[in-house]
């Protein structure tokens, strides 16, 4: 299991009911991790609608997960 730190923004924060959490996961890639989180928090947004960053760098969804990574999920927002 890999322990990662997760941060949620905008709609994801609202749906998760929290701004972030620490999670032990068997997921090997960001895509697998997001699938796990969709089941866990009932996220409604598809991965392709989001940007994801690991340790403050944008990454592709196939990026591998490493112990201690900080993963940030960012939906587009439009309010003004």
């Amino acid at each position, binding site marked *: 299991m890999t322990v990662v730190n997760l*941060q949620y*923004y*905008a*709609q994801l*924060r*609202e749906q998760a009911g929290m*701004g972030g959490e620490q999670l032990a996961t068997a997921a090997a890639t960001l895509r697998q991790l997001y699938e796990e989180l969709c089941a866990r928090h009932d996220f409604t*947004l598809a991965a392709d*609608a989001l*940007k994801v*960053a690991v340790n*403050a*760098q*944008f990454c*592709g969804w196939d990026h591998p997960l490493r112990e201690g990574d900080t993963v*940030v999920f*960012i*939906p*587009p*927002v*439009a*309010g*003004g």
Partner: protein
Amino acid sequence: MHFRLASEAFDTAPLRDGLQQPGCGGFCAFEGWVRDSNEGRQVDGLSYEAYAELALAEGERIVEEAIARYGIGDACCVHRTGDLAIGDLAVWVGASAAHRDEAFRACRYIIDEIKHRLPIWKKEHYVTGESAWVACTHAYREHEHESDHAHRHHEPAAAFAPDYSRQLRLREVGEAGQARLAASRVLVIGAGGLGCPVISYLAGAGVGTLGIVDGDRIDASNLHRQTLYGMRDIGELKVDAARRRVTALNPAVQVQTWSKPLDADNAVEVFGQFDLVVECTDDMRSRYLSNDAAVLSGTRLILASVYQYEGQLQVIEPGAACLRCLWPHEPAPDEVGSCVSSGVLGPVPGTLGAMQAMEALKLLLDLPRPREPALLLVNLLDMGMTRLPIDARRGCALHGGCASVARRALERDPGEADIALHFDVLEEALAAGFQLVDLRETKEIIAEPLGVAAARQISSAQILAHAGEFAQGRWLLVCASGRRSAHAARLLRAEGLHQVHSLAGGVSALRVTG
């Protein structure tokens, strides 16, 4: 003394005589009388109650303004308080001037401003025996619509000189920086929660020309976050109220306004007239159009948006990563949330808008700033700020570069005018041969039924799966605000279905006019 309150009936002849001057060739008076009905209710009298101290001071100020504004000989005004019967004189205004034109205008100015600004409350007594305090809502003020030409000879003698001393003191600004600001032209798209702080800070800083684009009118629900406006502005076009506020704040700033959103036909040309564009709408479509127009015109663009307690900020400079480098395609409206559906606290767009104004000044003054493109995430609950650098090589560069991606997007744009159609009532659309498609969720439909039969009910997220059903006939897609239906119509148009339209403004626009 030019203004007074009268608790009993008064004689107007001495007032008129008091305004007579040898140099005056014209006199104009206005009398306001008590009428026997108001908004369909029979009235048999009314009472005026004034906050006397304030009313006297404000009334005096209004008459003095009129005398200075139109350069007239003299003017005065008397307003009744207490109980009045039908036909009684409620207010009297008189103005004398060298020529009749100024006398008419000054008289009109005084009565319009009195109705608008004076702390006097009216209680109507109805023939049914009931009575009610009547709010004096937005008053049309003719002088706001006068051209500059009409009274430019009567402007107050001493012009206001803006004092920039507090910012001139900064070593990085100084006289040279101030001159740069005065020579700059900035376009602000959206005069709402983000746009209000942008407009007021840039006007205050002395940016030479501000362009303002907004098609909306001020609503009471805007006031908690849109700090340029007040209660009396409700119902007015935002660009008109914003222009007035900018002129009041800093008359040295030139204001140009667009009261319709820009579109694929004019955005690149309009952007080309400005040094910098600040995108402040709550509309994804506008943000993508601004992105494409900025890329193609080589104009710097500052984007921001908010969601509840968070915001995002991105500065786009020519040749660097753009919005499409991050999110290549415009997301569907239900993916992005809005202030209407998700809620927002006023200081959230206030903070992000102030940051946009700061970025604008940094660019105009060439202040030190990080050069690599990045997306800034701001969370105002935990006070977290995260700067994520954007790698342009992994964005539009993979699809021919930002400029060719933007050009293709604008060429595909079918133009909103053709897609969005206005109807006062849905019966008109049916009579015109349209079949209706209700894109709202079941709970929305229950809360507000269309009132006429929809041919289909399809959730907006499912629209493409039903594309085949729209090949024949003319279709009007309907949602609450017109946003989901416009997006769905564009998706179907991209599939070659050209007889699909969207109800402009959605069901809520019907309710206002219908």
